[in-house]
């Protein structure tokens, strides 16, 4: 029996009269790739915002490795080992690629402000170590040769990979990817699957993935949850979900 990493229990999020997420429950097992699909406005990104603490839940419970994380602040949740990327990439455009990665190593270093200002040996060696680790991550996503280029000057596909490298620098156990294939051409999309698997194995990650591209999701995910209008309408392995009547209706409409 595998271990539950993230447990979402009857999670609800209301914005005024709109119910963005309605009593959604599922559990993500350690080591799986868990897909989250659904039509636009189904509540997928809201669910990510709830898990990462950006949006407070109206009701329900969020448990990560046995701890209730429902009331934690985003930076505390990040420190617990949950990292994410964004549908519309959110890099620090004015920082270099390397600095972008180094920002998320912040939580894993201990030297304080004063040590940094005075360049004390502890802070200096820590800074060196962080810089090297950042370079290794950049090498892994093939951006090491442009480590000092500002992030906003990278082409789209590279920005996606840089964002993943930055998320990995947090040393997460759970990685939430919000439409990693958005805006990629078919070639890039084809290599994306292999890249995600590779990253997962190398960093022993559990991945939750929002994606619209059906072949990508079906080929990559162990299990898939389908949301529609904030409700969970199906949950299971790709084949079962693909043949689920409610899912077909949600995607194609219920007219004959």
């Amino acid at each position, binding site marked *: 029996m595998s271990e539950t990493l993230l447990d979402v229990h009857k999670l609800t999020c209301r914005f005024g009269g709109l119910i963005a997420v309605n009593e959604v429950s599922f559990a993500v097992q350690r080591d799986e790739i868990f897909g989250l699909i659904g039509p636009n406005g189904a509540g997928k990104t809201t669910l990510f915002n709830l898990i990462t603490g950006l949006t407070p839940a109206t009701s329900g419970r969020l448990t990560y490795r046995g701890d209730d994380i429902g009331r934690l602040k985003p930076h505390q949740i990040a420190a617990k080992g949950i990292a994410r990327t964004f549908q519309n990439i959110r890099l620090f455009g004015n*920082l270099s690629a390397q600095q972008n990665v180094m920002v998320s190593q*912040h939580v894993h270093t201990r030297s304080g402000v004063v040590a940094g200002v005075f360049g004390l040996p502890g802070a200096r060696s820590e*800074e060196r170590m962080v810089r090297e680790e950042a370079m290794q991550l950049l090498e892994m996503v093939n951006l090491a040769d442009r480590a000092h280029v500002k992030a906003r000057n990278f082409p789209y596909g590279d920005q996606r990979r840089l964002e993943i490298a930055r998320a990995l620098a947090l040393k997460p156990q759970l990685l939430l990817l919000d439409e990693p294939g958005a805006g990629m051409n078919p070639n890039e999309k084809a290599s994306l699957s292999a890249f995600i698997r590779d990253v997962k194995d190398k960093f022993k990650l559990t991945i939750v993935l929002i994606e619209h591209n059906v072949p990508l999701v079906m080929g990559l995910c162990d299990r898939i949850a389908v949301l529609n209008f904030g409700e969970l309408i199906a949950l299971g392995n790709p084949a079962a979900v693909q043949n689920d009547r409610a899912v077909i209706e949600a995607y194609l409409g219920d007219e004959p």
Partner: protein
Amino acid sequence: MELTTLLQQLINGLSIGSVYAIFALGYTLIFSILGIINFAHGAVFTLGAYFTYALTGARFGFNGIFAEAQLPFGLPFLLALFVGAGLAGLVGVLVERALFRPLRARGADPLLTLVSSLGIAVALVNTIQYFVGAEVYSFPSSVLQGLPPSVNFGTPEAPLVVRTVQLVIGVISLVILVVLTWFINRTKTGRALRAVAEDSTTSSLLGINTDRLILLTFFISGFVGGIAGTLVGLSVTITGPYFGIAFGLKGLAVIVLGGLGNIPGAVLGGIVIGIAENLLPSSAVAYKDAIAFAILFVVLLIRPQGLLGRTQVQKV
């Protein structure tokens, strides 16, 4: 203008300009992170000057609660300067905790926060007046003990005399500028600060405690404001509780001139205005504030984003 006079005025301009620069950095740091001008900054500047004044062991005047009061000890000037600035930094922290953070947590409109900071400025000014009165205070000349009143960089035949006070404030503010630039560009906290300035939501998702960094920013801002207050007080006098308000306006000119939220811009803006003021013919000195704003106006007509500012990229 003679060459020596020109050099003299350039040095004086550079010196006061670097004070403008560190003061303006206090505005810029907070603006770059919160997108708000903190109008209380001018009042914190004033407080810094009074704190240092008291810490040197100097006596207060005839008015206010502290009339004729005096600390039982006197710190050497340099130490008093930094302790005073530290206290000003704590006032900055207090302003953030009492005003900015609660308003931020309630999602207040930036304009409301800005007006509230103006309110805090007025309250601080009145508090100062209540305690120490509205008199003009001069640092006792003994604070620069052992130093000659002026230094001659020229020869006895062609003197290039600069007031020691100008040199002292120039050197101190240049050191602060260098340390601050180092801190922002070369330390991990500085990097986190830049990340929060660009996108605080994403920074928090990467494990950065944004509230704590904002608190630190207010401390640094108050600290450099306090240093600037003391240095200007030393160079001229502490002209009373409203000391920092006029200076605060000039600080605004400096950051807008350099480019809002742009750190090198604030430094450049400060030095440009400092030098421009000092190159004025003596007949026009009374209008130097007007001239600072005239420069600002002309520059903005040509470069609306300021000297080093970038054109705003629309956020999606």
